[in-house]
């Protein structure tokens, strides 16, 4: 996708990201379809009472259809990118400043890490000490969902009450999951 969008050839080899798997692709497709059906249904229900929604719904459908096409194109591009040969490694990029890393070999990370740092022209100046589990702990500790929820609870209960808290949480969660899905898709490139 990176290569197609920018016509560049120094893209690092694509790795399988969190939504690279077939199952998740299917899940996203199905979810999108369901969302589409649900939206269609609710708008058509609403437009019985509010005729002006007919115009609006037409616009929305057009937008959704366009978004769907766009999404499929991007997915196809990602797939093509996955299968493309790793051009970057063939050409053998060197660090721009030619500086040698001072970090001992133990902390330099995997082969893939080193290759990508070479491609980017950056010198490894920090040690790679976080593993999968510890970085998971790091992220979870930074967010502290339920603790922040507890400390913010008076504001939520004043505006919204208990029902607002429950439905609002689901609402916010849906939005954030979409945000983080695209975030991690970018990160897996």
């Amino acid at each position: 996708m990176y290569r197609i969008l920018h016509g560049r050839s120094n893209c690092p080899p694509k790795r399988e990201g969190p939504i690279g798997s077939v199952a998740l692709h299917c899940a996203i497709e199905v979810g999108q379809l369901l969302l589409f059906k649900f939206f269609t249904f609710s708008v058509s229900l609403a437009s019985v009472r509010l005729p002006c929604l007919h115009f609006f719904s037409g616009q929305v459908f057009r937008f959704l259809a366009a978004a769907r096409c766009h999404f499929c194109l991007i997915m196809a591009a990602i797939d093509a990118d996955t299968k493309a040969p790793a051009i970057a490694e063939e050409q053998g990029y060197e660090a721009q400043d030619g500086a040698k890393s001072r970090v001992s070999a133990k902390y330099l990370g995997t082969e893939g890490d080193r290759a990508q740092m070479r491609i980017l022209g950056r010198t490894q100046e920090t040690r790679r000490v976080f593993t999968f589990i510890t970085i998971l702990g790091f992220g979870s500790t930074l967010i502290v969902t339920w603790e922040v929820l507890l400390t913010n609870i008076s504001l939520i209960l004043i505006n919204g009450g208990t029902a607002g808290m429950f439905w609002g949480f689901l609402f916010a969660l849906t939005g954030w999951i979409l945000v983080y899905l695209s975030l991690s898709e970018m990160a897996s490139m």
Partner: protein
Amino acid sequence: MLQQSARSYEQAFYDGRVTDCFVSLGHPRQVDNTVSISVFGQIVHPTTDISNTDWVSEFAPPNVQKFLSYIVGWLTFTGWQSAITAIGSIVAGTIQGLIALKNPDYVWERWHTTLLTIAVVALCVFINIFVARRLPLVEGFLALVHFAGLFIVIIVLWTLAPRNNAHDAFFQFSNNGGYASDGVSFMVGILPLTLCLLGFDSQVHMAEETEDSARSIPRTIMYSTYINAFLGFLMVITLIFTWGDMAEISDSLYGWPFLTVFYNATGSKAATIAMTMLVLFPLTGSVIACVATASRQTWAFARDNGVPFSATVRHVRKHHPIF
């Protein structure tokens, strides 16, 4: 300054004035909110701690590339810096609430919060500098408290607190903030809820210190989102059922009604303090992680000459055991 903006932020919730809502946008966490949305930027190549500028300059039209990436860089920079103090002030305020619980004669002062915030942030900076090598261990331990602590808290609440009925819990909306309609009030109430799930892009900034980052970073972003969403959902379910009387919210302990809920459920000050510790430890861990993230972000931004005195900031001393 921070305290004042935090005050106005809370005032907006009570008074229901639109102007106050705009003022409250000055609240650092709100800035961070905006920022986090704009930080897709950070992560074109996760192997390195990308300065957000890289992403923006990749996708922006050529004529505004520099300007946009500069703006986004500064937004992220200020956002992460202020996130430190924002969570630090929550920790400080909770400590004040505990003091007020234990000692009824305690007189609440604003500058107490400020000093406590400075102390908390100083502690976290100290840990980041001198315990840097053991940071994964510290974070791992606090993550354990974060995961296990929830179950201790909710089991206590489930067994001891009074139960709300299901219809009220799921369908009774309230509008006590003075907003025009229930819908607006609901939307305002979502704002604090979004804060709970904010900031999973932090791992991206640690990418340069993670093994096999192209694989593990995106995975951990999603896994930690799902885990935290699950924990948050459990807490939401617990709170909507075990929440006591609304009138108690207003005269609770200095704006921390959860202390009152804990105290009413357990009836013991010691138990309340122990349960609050389970909240305080992960929150302090959050400040530590924020300091770590903000420092990496600043360093990465300085590598692109974004911050003032970039050459000094980005310099890594030769024999200093950073990691």
